[in-house]
């Protein structure tokens, strides 16, 4: 008997617990030749704000030991551009679509949320409060608990769509942010976003990224992510979506074991575009081997 991989996240039923991480899977079409999108648990698209944006100058990424620094800086087509150019494509598939949203002010966040509320074919909003690349105060949304609360409340009030705040990892007390999101009516939380970092070049004596600093992702941050997901999952009842360095089914199973109800694959899709699907297959095989009927039986299986 095949194990049941389906999970419910923020009221949305997913075929399996494996999503794509925002910003690492484009808007869907980019990987469609390589990956059967219908086999994904959900697609989370690159961060969108109100109007089209250009993002940072180049260089935008730099490789580090088992990691990647990026300062893409949130270029995007804006709400209308996304709805016009990408949503019809995505709606051809039988897969939940979460839109990752951001803004420069609380009002802008709320407005983006309201605009998507009026669009059909979107399953939920992941709220990027933790992108470290935008200088206009956005970094604060993720690390200042009062700012965080204001933005989550404003979005909650602006939409009936499921709301999934995505936590910044560079805080001393992650449980505080997780609980705050829950108290503000979030339907789920996701973590971790990229970790602030930097790379420099001694030959040029300059920064490796045009933006100076960037966000660290990939296997390097997995131990950090795993601990934060564990702490967050212990702190709240709403589902937790875990991510940070997931490359294999084993990695995903670790996040699920410490309490995540779903996971997202990010940087590893660059390394191997078929990572997410391999993770799905590997989870299925592991559950079968362990004689577990459903992935829910594995969530939180950690022996503490």
């Amino acid at each position, binding site marked *: 008997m095949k194990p049941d991989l389906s999970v419910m996240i923020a009221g949305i039923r997913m075929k399996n617990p494996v999503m794509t991480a925002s910003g690492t*899977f484009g808007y869907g079409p980019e990987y469609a030749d*390589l990956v059967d999108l219908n086999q994904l648990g959900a697609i989370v698209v690159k961060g969108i704000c109100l109007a089209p944006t250009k993002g940072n100058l180049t260089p935008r990424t730099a*490789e580090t030991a088992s990691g990647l620094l990026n300062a*893409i800086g949130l270029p995007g087509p804006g709400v209308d551009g996304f709805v016009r150019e990408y949503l019809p494509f995505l709606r051809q598939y039988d897969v939940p679509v979460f839109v990752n949203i951001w803004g420069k002010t609380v009002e802008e966040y709320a407005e983006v949320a309201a605009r998507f509320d009026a669009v059909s074919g979107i399953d939920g909003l992941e709220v990027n409060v933790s992108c470290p690349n935008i200088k206009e105060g956005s970094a604060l949304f993720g690390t200042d608990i009062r700012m965080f609360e204001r933005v989550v409340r404003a979005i909650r009030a602006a939409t009936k769509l499921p709301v999934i705040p995505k936590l910044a990892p560079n805080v001393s007390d992650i449980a505080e942010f997780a609980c705050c999101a829950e108290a503000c009516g979030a339907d789920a939380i996701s973590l971790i976003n990229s970790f602030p970092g930097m790379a420099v070049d001694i030959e040029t004596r300059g920064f490796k990224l045009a933006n100076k600093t960037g966000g660290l992702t990939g296997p390097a941050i997995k131990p950090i992510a795993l601990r934060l997901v564990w702490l967050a999952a212990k702190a709240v009842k709403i589902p937790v979506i875990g991510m940070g360095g997931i490359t294999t089914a084993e990695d995903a199973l670790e996040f699920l074991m410490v309490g995540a109800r779903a996971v997202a694959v990010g940087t590893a899709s660059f390394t191997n575009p*078929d990572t997410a699907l391999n993770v799905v297959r590997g989870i299925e095989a592991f559950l079968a081997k362990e004689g577990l009927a459903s992935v829910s039986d594995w969530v939180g299986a950690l022996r503490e």
Partner: protein
Amino acid sequence: MQLERATVLEHIPIHGGYNLLRMRAPGVAPRVRPGQFIHVKIPHLEECVLRRPFSVFRADGDALAILYKDVGKGTRTLQYLKAGETLSILGPLGHGFPDPNPAAYPIIVAGGYGMAALYLTARTAPVKGIAFFGGRAAKDILCVSDFEALGWTVRVTTEDGSLGRKGIVTDALDEWWLNESAGRAPELFACGPGGMLKAVAHRAIERGWTAWTSMDNSMGCGVGACLTCVLKVREGEGWTWARACREGPVFDARAVLWEEIE
């Protein structure tokens, strides 16, 4: 575009730090168009999360070859790969060179691995043209006999004069224009260092030639998802980003904002 496990058929050092890596890739090889590239996961380089892009040099039936230079960690490690071993490749990727216009005289301008990247264009061109190859020294010049075997004329320029004419590649191009062009409208196909492309593009724009330039931007995903590889291209009065891995690597020289390229 396809993810494939290719098998190494041949892996031999050439010169100037370059290596020829030929592999069996029945999924990717038959689909390659001139100027496209493959994105390679370097075996045994677990600590690097990114693949490395290489232009396809030759594609014949089920086999394809790349010519790559040892410039860093990835290309150094790639050299350990032995015949019979396998590697993961993603390709063919990108928007390559268009088919040469049969009404124009095709000119290739290449530096570094650009000589390899333009071989397929030379092979498919209906008119045999002239190829200008430039490099620092003799050891940096590749593929001359491959191009000559196709019936192309190859003109080599080296900065130290160790092979061909002493100077830079655009000197040779300018000389051709002054003395030999005989009014023929050339169509340029260029791949090489940014400075070379820029110099070629300036001439083309000034003289009203069509020129296609292959942009060597560093890459993340290789498929258009990460927005690492972008460069500025003209859009109306302003500019927009184009992805070297999707809209490129080959661009019409008139589209590129050359002032932004070093």
